């Protein structure tokens, strides 16, 4: 028995070692650095307490990024889940070529966010604008990415295009795990399609919603790659009487702070991102958990 414990520990050791080295230690180091004045190079690091955090909440660009991220997340949660739920209903119906559609909807998820950002930048900046000029449609003639009030929506649309296929798979699995007898019984009892969807399907797959909402929430909150290539934070807009970048989400704000050699400040922002993500995600999961039904 003892020997088994030793073997178990030895097998665990590489994973534990890696986990400690790349997650646990950097996490606490990060917490520490967020309370210093470190610039990333200087070996003399001075402890400054909560100064970095205090200055954050008086900086319009950070407050804006925070609110923009919340808005973007909210739009995404609704858009991605509604679209992917509808897609999953379509591809689990008796429609022809449904396997082809399943694969097709999933493919965008396989394209990396960087590449995808450039592709959509080209579509939104060049193709749509040229189309608008050719058809003399005024609302298309300036790019959606160059208008500060539409850029977050454009980003959400691109994100939905990328992510809906992935969430769709989760919903398909949930729909297929619902016993067919249940649906048949409902049909026999005279329930229409919409009634079946809302009264049986949705309550029965509540656990899938928990997972899907959690995934969309966390990925949108941490969005960086597509943000970076699609909009680079632009265009500018005015917030609290200061010019700020209209589509600079939190992760990109952190990145831009860090690349300006303001490591401690960037770390403080990262801690704020982490804490708010944990809080929001916990609230979401606990609400969703209450709605789940056991079979």
């Amino acid at each position, binding site marked *: 028995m003892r020997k088994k414990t030793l073997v178990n520990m030895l097998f665990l050791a590489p994973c534990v070692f890696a986990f400690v080295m790349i997650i646990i230690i950097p996490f606490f180091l990060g917490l520490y650095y967020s309370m210093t004045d470190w610039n990333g190079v*200087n*070996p003399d690091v001075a402890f400054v307490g909560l100064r970095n955090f205090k200055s954050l909440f008086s900086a319009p660009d950070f407050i804006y990024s925070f609110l923009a991220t919340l808005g973007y997340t909210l739009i995404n949660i609704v858009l991605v889940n509604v679209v992917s739920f509808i897609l999953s209903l379509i591809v689990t119906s008796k429609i022809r070529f449904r396997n082809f559609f399943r694969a097709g909807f999933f493919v965008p998820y396989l394209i990396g966010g960087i590449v995808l950002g450039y592709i959509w930048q080209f579509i939104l900046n060049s193709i749509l604008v040229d189309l608008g000029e050719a058809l003399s449609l005024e609302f298309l003639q300036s790019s959606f*990415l160059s208008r500060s009030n539409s850029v977050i929506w454009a980003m959400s649309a691109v994100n939905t295009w990328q992510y809906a296929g992935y969430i769709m798979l989760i919903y398909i699995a949930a729909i297929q795990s619902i016993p067919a007898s249940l649906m048949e019984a409902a049909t026999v009892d005279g329930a229409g399609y919409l009634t079946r969807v809302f009264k049986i399907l949705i309550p029965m797959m509540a656990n899938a919603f928990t997972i899907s909402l959690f995934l969309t929430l966390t990925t949108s909150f941490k969005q960086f790659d597509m943000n970076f290539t699609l909009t680079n934070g632009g265009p500018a807009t005015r917030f609290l009487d200061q*010019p700020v*970048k209209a589509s600079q989400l939190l992760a990109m704000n952190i990145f*831009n702070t860090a690349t300006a*050699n303001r490591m401690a400040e960037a770390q403080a922002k990262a801690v704020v991102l982490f804490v708010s993500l944990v809080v929001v995600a916990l609230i979401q999961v606990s609400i969703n958990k209450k709605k789940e039904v056991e079979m």
Partner: protein
Amino acid sequence: MKKVVSTLAVAGLVLALLMTASCAKKEAPKPQDVSVNMFQLKVEIKDALDGYAAAYSAAHPGVTVKVETLGGGGDYGGALKAKSQAGQMPDIFQIEGMGHYEVWKDYIADLSGEPWVKDTDLALKVDGKVVGFPVAIEGYGLAYNADILAKAGIDPASLTTRAAYEKAFKTLDAKKKELGISAPVSMAASVAGGMWWVAGQHNLACYWGGGLAFDDTSVIRKALQGEMDEPRFTQYAKYVQLLFKYADRNILLNGSYDDQVGAFAQGKTAFLHQGNWVDPNLKQLGVTFKIGYAPHAFLDTEEKGLYLFAPSWYVVNSKSPNAQAAKAFLAAMATTPEGHDYMVNKAGMIPAFKSVTLKPSGQLSQELMAANARGGNYGVFFGMLPDGAGQNVFAPVYDLFAQNPANLSQFIADMKKAIAGLPGMK
């Protein structure tokens, strides 16, 4: 059976540990051989520099120069930080101004005693000490397409005041169809296109140094204290307004570098707001028309100079045991015919050293070299700003002004506020 497997696994793990441990011990360098590691960020000169380093190593037995390049889209600063954290700080690395000097000063050696110091005006100096070897001269004015200007009846030599520019832009704008251009100016200022630096660094440099003596930093020094010279800035703001008003809207608000340079190269605009680094791009795009530089004349009074600067400097790692060999390598680059040949003919740069007699091939580079010989040029000081000021503070201000160039007073107010915030960024 289980036992055998587990013993084997344990043995395997132990073996792996031992192997990594033994690997780490190998490769003790021979004491007499010196290896100089250089880490640089100009991707466009990578091949030329690799070749020069190899030739230098071959000519100097016992010295091996290894060049590593990371730049373009790569995060040079981040990589350098990683190297310093890992204890693999290169012997020669590259910095882009005082902001970076402040970050890296513990690693930067004093180069005051080097033989090339007297041969250049563009060495990086801190408190009277020379610390940086100027990589090249770069510079800019407002590049013009001489053919289009001739057709429109505009003499480029007359473009020395803001009023002259306004007249020229108006003429070009009125004759757009006839000249086949989409707008008079190809200017970029967008955050989205990643072009904030054209406006927020290079154009703003006119306000910092335009019309002053080459090394007069009084305006930017005042700004670093949070003060703006309002009468001067108002004249500058009117010039920016002029550029934005007569620029191609799509390029201004959304365009990338390729869009901006491409429009000028295809003859769709008469002016281009870019430096001599576009020479290779223009060549690639098959430009045959004659190009020259007109000054960024933003003042009410006449200005004739171009903006010249060293965009980056090589510095020597003061903590490296190979510092002497690194210094010798840089000295050879500046003082030997092989070094000159590398800088001008192979790398296509304009060397910052007066003793160099070779001529670059690009039209704009030749213009700059002529301007450098003529004198009366202006310094470029944005490198003195705190890190991130251009990208995070000035960029959105210019982007917003580009969206609505009519609102001059708002732009001035925004910039005043941005400058007032500079002391807090240290």
